[in-house]
Every structure is written in structure tokens, then in C-alpha cells.
């Protein structure tokens, strides 16, 4: 049963579905008119191509609505027309391969980076960097929303700040961006129409605790320490030692203060010692 032999499809069905799927996913090339008339029946009100066109129009419109839901700040920044153009190009290049729409935008930030409109320009354009960063930021948040977290396990407490098994919790992402995308996102969420931000290197921790998403700004040294902690299954003490090589011994006096903030914010859990 599991090898698929029991539900081998009839050839005619497979051919028809190949025709229909191509007609939806590769609309620019368009199916042959003869094939449309061969497969689709006319009615008194519409000819076969008009019947097919209802599905073709709906395919992109439906998925575009979903992309707009997953990238609201980016859609705001680009405007509806430009966002639609980028999103439709992405959907043409990367049709969904998941039964859930929750994965629809997974490759959008990479797609934008790999298909930058300024690819052949002498200098990269700042707005494109911003667009790529904002897409990655929104997708990271979206992924964390439904990812495995530590809600059932529970978070480490201040009383455990010296525990050797402190680890980053699973629903935490560390990101650095070339623009203050978190602040931009927050302004759009609050109903404002923010201006295009100036370039500014930012370090962020995106965290889900108790099923709520938080956006935390980090200092570069905090980002370095947390990144080291995230890299391998090492201890905080090992991460501190490694980071001290880069950032100097001052980190040893600062780390306990940072740690208290991270514990209060739910960054850490007790892993296996």
C-alpha cells in the first residue's frame, strides 16, 4: 500500500492533470487552444477558455492574498503593485510544495536576494537591501509563531542563572539587518505610514514566549554572545570564554547583567547538562 502501487493513476487522468496544472502555474506560456477545447466543455454562457480562465485568475489572486498576509510590512513598503509583481514572480518560480499555506513564503526573502533588480548595476540599491531584510524579518517572525517552543517545558528562572544547563530556548532567532526593520514593522503594525528608513546596522532577538512574539534589540556584543551560545550545544560559560577572546574580558562583568534580562524575557531554558 505504501509504495504507491495501489493508487497508480490512470494515464488519462495524469495527462489531464498535467494540462490543468500547467495552465495554472505557467500562464505566461498558456496552454494550446486545441488542448483546452479537447479537455474542457463549453456551456451556453462561456467557452472552454473562459471556463479555464476563472481558475487561472483565482490561482494567483488567492495566493497573493496569502503572501500579503505573511508579508504585511513589506507589502506596505513596496505598495500593492510592486509587491504583487515580486510575489507573482516568486510564485511562478517556486510553486507551493506544501499542503499547508504556512510555508508559502518560506523562500521569498532568498528569492528577492537572488533576483535583485539591481543585479547588473554598478552599486547595489539601498531599498532592495531593505526589502530583502524586511522579508527575512517578517518570515522569521511568521515561522516562530507556529514553531515548537518551550511553553510546555517552561523557561529558566532568575534562581537558575548559575545553572550549567542554561541553553537558548528553541523558539528564538538571532538576526542582524542593515536597516531598523523591527521599528519599521512596529510602525506599520500600529497603523502608521513610516518613511523609508536610513541604513543602520541592527541586531535583534526574535522570541516567542508564552505564545507571544517579542522583538528585542541587542547590542553587538550581546548578539555575539548569544550567537555563540546558539551555535553548538555548549554551555554559557563556554560561550562566554569564546566571546571574551573576541570582545575582551569586560564581557565577564557585563554578562551577569545581560543574563538577568534574558532570563526575565524567557530567552533561556534548562537543557541537558
Amino acid at each position: 500500500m505504501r509504495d504507491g502501487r495501489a493508487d497508480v493513476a490512470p494515464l488519462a487522468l495524469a495527462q489531464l492533470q498535467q494540462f490543468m496544472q500547467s495552465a495554472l502555474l505557467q500562464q505566461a506560456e498558456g496552454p494550446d487552444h486545441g488542448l483546452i477545447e479537447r479537455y474542457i466543455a463549453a456551456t451556453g454562457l462561456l467557452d472552454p477558455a473562459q471556463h479555464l480562465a476563472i481558475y487561472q485568475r483565482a490561482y494567483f489572486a488567492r495566493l497573493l492574498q496569502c503572501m500579503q498576509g505573511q508579508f504585511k510590512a513589506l507589502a506596505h513598503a513596496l505598495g500593492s503593485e510592486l509587491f504583487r509583481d515580486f510575489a507573482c514572480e516568486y510564485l511562478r518560480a517556486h510553486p507551493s510544495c506544501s499542503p499547508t499555506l504556512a510555508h508559502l513564503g518560506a523562500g521569498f526573502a532568498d528569492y528577492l536576494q537572488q533576483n535583485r533588480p539591481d543585479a547588473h548595476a554598478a552599486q547595489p540599491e539601498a531599498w532592495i537591501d531593505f526589502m530583502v531584510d524586511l522579508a527575512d524579518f517578517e518570515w522569521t517572525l511568521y515561522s516562530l509563531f507556529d514553531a515548537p517552543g518551550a511553553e510546555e517545558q517552561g523557561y529558566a528562572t532568575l534562581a537558575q542563572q548559575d545553572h550549567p544547563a542554561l541553553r537558548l530556548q528553541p523558539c528564538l532567532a538571532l538576526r542582524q539587518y542593515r536597516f531598523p526593520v523591527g521599528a519599521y514593522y512596529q510602525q506599520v503594525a500600529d497603523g502608521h505610514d513610516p518613511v523609508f528608513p536610513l541604513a543602520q546596522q541592527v541586531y535583534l532577538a526574535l522570541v516567542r514566549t508564552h505564545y507571544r512574539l517579542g522583538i528585542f534589540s541587542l547590542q553587538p556584543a550581546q548578539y555575539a554572545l548569544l550567537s555563540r551560545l546558539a551555535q553548538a550545544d555548549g554551555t554559557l560559560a563556554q560561550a562566554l570564554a569564546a566571546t571574551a577572546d573576541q570582545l575582551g574580558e569586560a564581557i565577564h562583568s557585563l554578562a551577569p547583567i545581560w543574563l538577568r534580562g534574558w532570563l526575565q524575557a524567557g530567552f533561556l531554558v534548562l537543557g541537558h547538562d
Partner: protein
Amino acid sequence: MHAPHPGDNWPRLGLGLGLRHVHVEHILKHWPAVDWFEVISENFMFSAGRPRQVLRQVAERYPLVMHGVSMSIGSSDPLDFRYLQALKALADEIQPKWISDHLCWTGIQGKHTHDLLPLPLTDETLQHVAERIRIVQAVLERPLVLENPSSYLSYTQSSWTEPAFLAELVVQTGCRLLFDVNNCYVSCYNAGQDPQDYLKALPHEAIVQLHLAGHQHCGSHIIDTHDRPVAAAVWQLFQQVWRRSPAAAILLEWDGNIPDFDTCLAELHKAKGFMQGQQVNHWAAADVGRVDAAEAVSTPVDFMVAPLMAEARQMAMTEQERQDA
């Protein structure tokens, strides 16, 4: 052969609503009086976050039915057993009264169009779908409940009518039916057929659930939009079906321009009057004679995307940061 028989004991759920993200806060706060909820399986099967946590809370208070959109029972791709196992795992967790999906295909070659695409209704397709239903039912350890989709085309190859095709699947596999009254109306209009002929061939004894939803009339065709009240013509059809399937659970789908929970509930409760024989005031209905030039999106799916923008907030880590903020 698995024809349903009078001894079948399917629960009578009453009148239910689709569980939607935008209503979750209201439901968790007020626990409103609604008989049951239908949940979109794919919204929760792969969730390890708040949606699944909310679903567990809702499952403690209300009967649930799982309604899927990605099983692709008619696809020429092999069945996706990872999908089926995830579906089964969710069912084991929330104990739905039944699990439904559509008589359709959604994609091939590993791709998903996220549309409910029509099948050519041929003898070959019938055997293919029947075999897959048997496999699915073995994995899920329960009968599958199959819904008639809304369709905008029919194939030249088709040799079966849709209700006869569904009736034969019921006989061959023991599956049950979710009859979407609006889909029947939409598909018949788009195919130039009479819904009355559809009803005559429908195996009413196999229907365990009815769907109601709004649609958009575009003149040359009708789009299944789920974004407005139920049309008068659909209520009339519902009244006829209800007389033949009085044990069926009734569910209103409202997936686009979703109003507040109480508005959805009020629309659902219109069904009570029609179930008791109240005449559908066809000429007073808001939809009569209304034809839209701009086509809305058929079977919208964006309601499945969690509206998390309002949830993610910039947070201050320290007291100094809080003061700065």
C-alpha cells in the same frame, strides 16, 4: 459494498461555525453558545504554536469536526502518507466527530495549487478515487466524509454526473458525504445544469453534514466566495435537502470579509427558521438581481494565514530600555 444503513449512528451536531483566527479572542473570552466548530485541518496539523494550543482549549468545550483542503484524493500523485499521518495524529489529539475533505485534486508532481480542482468523472477516475478512499480510511481508522466542490468547468471526458459519482463512491467505500448546498448551486449554474436534477441523484441517506456559504454572481458565472450572506436561492435548496437529510450537521462557512462572530452566528441561525418550514422570501433577499462586474477570489484561503502582525511587539529588556522607550 458499504452502503450506509439505518443503524449508522452518526452524532447529530446541530448548527456550527468554521473556527477562524479572527474570532479566536472572542471565543476564548465569551465561550459563545454555538453547537460545534469545524476546523481547517491544515491550519493545525503542522502547528506547534498558539493555533494548536487554542484548538486544545476549544476542543475541551465544543464538539469539533476536521475539514481538510489538501488531501488531494483525486490526484494522480501517490497519496502523501506523511500528510495522512499528521492528519491522524491531530485527530487522535482532538477527537473530531469526523474528518472531511473534497472530491477534487489540488496538485501533482509534489506541487500544491491550494485550489480544489475538479476531476474528470469517468469510470477510471471512480476506481482510482475509490481505491484511495479505502487507503485513507484504513490509515484514519474511520470513514472519510467527502464534499462536493464548487466548480467552474466540466471536462469533455466526464461520463458520470457528480451526484451519481458520489453515490457510487459511497456504495464502493462506505464513505459519507458533506453536501455543500452552495457549491451545488454554483457548480450547476456554471455547468448550465439544474440543481433539482442534482438533488434527485444525490444519496441523501449518506449525508452527515451540510455546508452553507455566500457566493458572488457575475452574470456569466458564479464564484464561490464565502464572503457574504447565503443567497436566497441557496436557502431554498437547503430547505429541500434538509427535508431529506434531517440528521445532518449544518455549518456556515464565512472566509472572506469575515464579520464579527455574532454576525456569523446570526447568519447561521437563519437556518433554524428554514428548517422549521419558514418560506424563503426570495424577492426580499439582498442578493436578488445583484450582478458584480469585478470578480472576487473563489474559495479564499487567506483566512488561514494567522494575523500575527498585531501580536509581535518590540520589547524592552531592561528598565533603562523601558525608560528610553
